[in-house]
């Protein structure tokens, strides 16, 4: 008898392993990729999905929360939808398969499936650590995505929208994207489902910014009320690179969006802004780690959560400052509006600082609507429901307005927020 006790697999674990087994022989990849997939799925089978005992999954016990995984349906097909920002170049990825159409000047792309087949994808498929469940599931099952390169010095005028649309079933996608030195671009990574049937989506973006690149990257998650979304973005910031990363969660039943970054060139700067609009019985987790690896790097993080109904939100943020990373300047804040007695939010901001000459801080607040502000609005004749809506909107709109240089973008994001609030508030 085997001394190592095998876990009894949950329905979801079984479904994931079955999805792999069913597709063996059909999953793209060269020898190295296929053998790595095998290892990843084996790990999933033996270790299972993470539970609350795994530190980074403490508030999102995936093993318990993920009750079922819908079977992959090769015939699933979703139509593309209008871009978030009118005039964007849309790269549709339907049911996990990229559709390469016209690309703007300065952008080259190929299907990620090809990188799997020729084996160039293998290094990127490695998991980030033993607790990287998203990397593991995605690495085992990924079939498509896009590998995108923004040329050195390219200045993209319109946003690039990577539109990952899904109707039901499963999709596992990857997006390695590199921004050349001195390039400037706005990328919208959009996830949405077009049908009410449940879908299970995993997606990993792997983003590299070369010297002086200036990038706005916006993740817009608009999955349906029955969907599971496991997202991860990894990024590496070179010298003087600037990334404004904006995450909007406005959908999904079970959502985890991980953000793992490194500031590895002097002068690198990250601005992270997150808006989590949570309602119903959803569970949404944003987990962020950033390591400041070299001197003179800066970062600022603001997460705003609006939690209605019985929704639960989680924000974990960890900033690591390496021993040599003197003069690091990092500020992290997580502010929450809890709008019902059953709503809940767990925030865990952490700083791990090994350098001595740094400026770092973090804070978390949880509040209800400000009664004085509400009364002031009522006293001007604004009905309570409308006044509450305006105050909730104001709470998140503040950080959208920071993107003031791009009016169309601000308008588009405000549109997504107010549409969500109108439906839920």
């Amino acid at each position: 008898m085997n001394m190592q006790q095998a876990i009894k697999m949950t329905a979801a674990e079984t479904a994931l392993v079955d999805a792999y087994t069913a597709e063996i022989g059909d999953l793209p990849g060269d020898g190295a990729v296929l053998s790595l997939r095998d290892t990843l799925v084996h790990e999933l089978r033996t270790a299972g999905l993470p539970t609350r005992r795994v530190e980074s999954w403490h508030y999102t016990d995936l093993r318990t929360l993920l009750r079922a995984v819908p079977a992959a349906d090769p015939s699933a097909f979703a139509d593309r939808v209008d871009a978030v920002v009118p005039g964007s170049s849309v790269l549709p990825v339907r049911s996990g398969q990229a559709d390469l159409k016209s690309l703007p000047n300065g952008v080259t792309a190929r299907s990620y499936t090809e990188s799997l087949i020729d084996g160039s994808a293998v290094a990127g498929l490695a998991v980030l650590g033993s607790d990287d469940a998203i990397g593991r599931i995605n690495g085992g099952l990924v079939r498509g995505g896009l590998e995108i390169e923004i040329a050195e010095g390219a200045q993209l005028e319109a946003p690039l929208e990577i539109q990952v649309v899904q109707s039901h079933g499963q999709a596992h996608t990857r997006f390695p994207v590199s921004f050349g030195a001195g390039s400037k671009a706005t990328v919208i990574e959009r996830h949405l489902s077009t049908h009410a049937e449940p879908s299970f989506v995993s997606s990993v973006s792997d983003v590299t910014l070369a010297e002086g690149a200036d990038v706005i990257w916006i993740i817009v998650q608009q999955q349906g009320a029955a969907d599971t979304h496991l997202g991860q973005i990894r990024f590496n910031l070179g010298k003087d690179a600037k990334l404004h990363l904006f995450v909007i969660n406005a959908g999904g039943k079970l959502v985890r969006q991980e953000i793992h970054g490194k500031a590895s060139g002097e002068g690198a700067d990250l601005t992270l802004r997150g808006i989590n609009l949570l309602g119903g019985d959803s569970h949404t987790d944003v987990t962020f780690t950033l390591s400041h690896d070299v001197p003179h790097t800066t970062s600022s993080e603001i997460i705003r959560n609006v939690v209605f109904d019985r929704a639960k939100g989680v924000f974990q943020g960890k900033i690591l400052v390496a021993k040599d990373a003197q003069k690091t300047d990092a500020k992290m804040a997580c502010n929450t509006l809890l709008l019902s007695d059953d709503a809940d939010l767990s925030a865990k901001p952490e700083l791990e600082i090994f350098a001595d000459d740094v400026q770092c801080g973090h804070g978390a607040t949880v509040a209800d609507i400000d009664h004085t502000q509400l009364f002031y609005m009522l006293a001007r004749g604004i009905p309570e429901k409308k006044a509450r809506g305006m105050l909730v909107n104001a709470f998140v709109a503040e950080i959208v307005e920071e993107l003031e240089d791009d009016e169309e973008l601000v308008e588009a994001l405000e549109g997504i927020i107010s549409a969500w609030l109108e439906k839920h508030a």
Partner: protein
Amino acid sequence: MLEIKNLHARIAEDGTEIIRGLNLTVKAGEVAAIMGPNGSGKSTLSYVLSGREDYEVTEGDILYNGESILELDASERAAKGIFLAFQYPVEIPGVATMQFLKVAMNEQRKYRGEDELTTPEFMRRVKEAAAELKIAPEMLRRPLNVGFSGGEKKRAEILQMALLEPKLCVLDETDSGLDIDALKVVADGVNALRSPDRAVVVITHYQRLLDYIVPDTVHVLYKGQVIKSGDKTLAHELEAKGYADLIEAAA
């Protein structure tokens, strides 16, 4: 227009009674001044009038145009024409001043069954009223009251009042924090609204404002009651002698 009868009100949270059997009548066209020492309940009265839920009315009634308003919430009272200029106007980051004005004006119109204002008409009205009150257009581009100086906030209150055209205006220490010129501008703004079908209640500590907005009646509030009423000469007396004699007489 306004009849307050034996009003008792307490803080909802802890039950402390602040308004203790207050009677006050203000007729249409009248300007009534309310004075009284700090903590006597003037602001509380203004909040209870406008329907703030932090206070509970336990006894008595407030009649507005002959009808009790106790069952109406604050937004309904406002839409019916009751306006409170706050002693401490509230900052609302993230809500643009112009958006706020437009929503307030149109929601009140909707409540009264009137058409919403078109954007050009709205802009015209705001521009005109802002110019009268010497309010710089830059101020209107900021979030509501955010970063406004004390005096700017008070002027913004009067701008809102001018735009909303209420029937009963309650001004809670609108003069505090205003320089001499601003006081004049604000008083002119209030006087411009005086009309036979409108009443104004001015809460103030100082005769100075009442030199510009001359009251028809003056009422002294103490411990949640009106302890003395008179005409404008009462304010002059108070300015000269303070409240001590009155309080003694009432005790």
